[in-house]
């Protein structure tokens, strides 16, 4: 009934396609050495989409304000680097804490109520944080953004270069590490109970599952990951603009995740890659056309290709395999 990928039973083994996917990501810098800056942006956005997949694809929480946690992480890392704490990894950790804290504090109003209330509350929280950052221009730099960041060398050895080599490797390593954690989470009993809540929130309490606590927990985890993604963006670009908190970021994120297919972890990564490469190509021609085609794509997707790219692949595969088994 829903647009999510088919439920799969937990399986800790790595599918060959998964291995190939990660090998391809690791090999990408050798194939496209000139596009490393875009590449690391894709990885960072993919990480951000992964955080949304945890709450949308697995727990069924629709959010239009996920940029709040992303922005909180970006500003945390940015402000730390600006005021003398330029060590990247600890900045990342601080951003994770900031993202989780914002998510936890707002989860009490964000995870209750129906879908419309959730949409509104997450949208409202996102807009409030945006306005707050805009007004606190002395701290955040307001519309001019936060620059003058002094990010130190990664691990004290690798400086962030203009070509984006360090940024790519750094983003890739963080993405992979977080992905492993997420993969573990969604295959745990906790992850399974989230799917139970998504598919039948009324029945889960009868099984003894504390729905509210579970949702608050996953929302906070998702916030921490979004915070990490924001910090990665801040550290690799050495700049934090107000748009890290913007509505467009939240809306685009939702589009990417659905484009790739929610509820299978890889959907967000694939969606982010497709979205950003297309955006990069089309909006260099004309930003208005990009918006139009994106809108058309969304409408078409809702009517013909629910479940996104990953969902479509999964469906096709199941059909072929199902036929072969018979």
């Amino acid at each position, binding site marked *: 009934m829903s647009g999510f990928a088919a439920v799969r039973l937990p399986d800790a083994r790595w599918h060959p396609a998964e291995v190939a996917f990660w090998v391809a990501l690791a090999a990408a810098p050798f194939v496209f050495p000139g596009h490393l800056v875009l590449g690391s942006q894709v990885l960072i956005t993919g990480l951000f989409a992964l955080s949304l997949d945890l709450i949308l694809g697995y727990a069924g929480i629709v959010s239009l304000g996920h940029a709040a946690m992303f922005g909180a992480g970006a500003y945390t890392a940015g402000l730390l680097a600006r005021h003398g704490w330029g060590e990247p990894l600890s900045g990342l950790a601080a951003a994770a804490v900031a993202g989780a804290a914002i998510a936890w504090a707002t989860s009490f*109003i964000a995870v209750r109520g129906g879908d419309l209330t959730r949409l509104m509350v997450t949208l409202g929280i996102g807009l409030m944080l945006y306005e707050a950052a805009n007004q606190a221009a002395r701290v955040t730099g307001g519309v001019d953004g936060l620059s003058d960041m002094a990010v130190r060398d990664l691990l004290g050895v690798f400086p962030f270069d203009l070509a984006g080599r360090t940024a790519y490797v750094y983003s890739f390593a963080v993405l992979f590490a977080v992905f492993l954690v997420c993969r573990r989470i969604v295959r745990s009993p906790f992850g399974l109970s989230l799917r139970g809540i998504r598919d039948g929130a009324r029945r889960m309490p009868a099984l003894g599952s504390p729905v509210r606590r579970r949702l608050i927990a996953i929302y906070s985890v998702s916030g921490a990951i979004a915070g990490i993604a924001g910090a990665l963006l801040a550290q690799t670009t050495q700049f934090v603009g107000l748009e890290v908190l913007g509505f467009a970021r939240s809306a685009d994120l939702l589009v990417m995740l659905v484009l790739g297919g929610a509820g299978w972890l890889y959907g967000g990564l694939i969606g982010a890659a497709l979205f950003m490469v297309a955006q990069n190509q089309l909006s260099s021609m004309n930003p208005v056309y990009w*918006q139009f085609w994106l809108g058309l794509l969304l409408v078409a997707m809702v009517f013909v290709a629910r479940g996104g790219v990953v969902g479509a692949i999964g469906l096709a595969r199941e059909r072929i395999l199902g036929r072969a088994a018979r």
Partner: protein
Amino acid sequence: MFTSLPGVLFDGVAYGSLLFLMSIGLSVTMGLMRFINLAHGAFAMLGGYVCVVGMARLGVPFLATLPLAFLAAAAAGAVLERALYRRLYRRGPLDQVLFSLGLTLMSVAGATYVWGSGQQPMHLPGFLLGQVRVLGVDLGIYRLFLVALVATITAALVLLVRRTRFGARLRASVDDAQASAGLGIDVTRVFSVTFALGSGLAGLGGALAIDVLGLDPTFPLKYLVYFLLVVVVGGAGSIAGTLAASLLLGLFDVSGKYYVPAAGAFVIYALMVVLLLLFPGGLRRGAR
């Protein structure tokens, strides 16, 4: 510029009336079809452009463009409802959000393509300009006109819903679409007519709003939050609730901008979260 408290309050009421006109259609369609329509502002924008184009290129007088704005938006609403919206009533909220977000993006890009990205100029006719002094308070004539017009429309809507056969069908369908269909009410047609009416009112509101809120292609996104806020706070499907929420929002927004300009839009977002905290069930109660 010094403006007295009654003057600010009156501006708030005028602003709230505009919000009411633009969000009542959204409120009814959300209550009736449970459809999360983020593209509602696009109908308001269409009405605004019909008004501007009618006045500037075709030389239609301002008052005569208002019914045109209503009709154009209502026609667009009717066509889209029949062609697209109807297929998604039974889908989940995520599909509805994505679809209507896509429609909004297309409308923004389309309006930029046709009319350019700038603010549209608005020249009100002379008799709507200036101010009158009522009980020692200077009131803008256009704002008085707005409040009077919206009050008339509200009264007509209440009569329509409470006193006519169509209104009875509408109320029955809102309460329980399935049972109403069982009683022989053509719920699908009630949906279509209501959707067109709501879109038309949004178009009228968009035309009236140019002088107050301005008009550029980002209009549907810029005021999206306001429309949704009105509906969520007022309770979907309720005229009285929508009116109360619109006025409350208008008053807070205008007085916030006058008295604490530094806080900017923060006042309105804070109000929204507080209201949602206080009345988390308001929406659901309204939608039932």
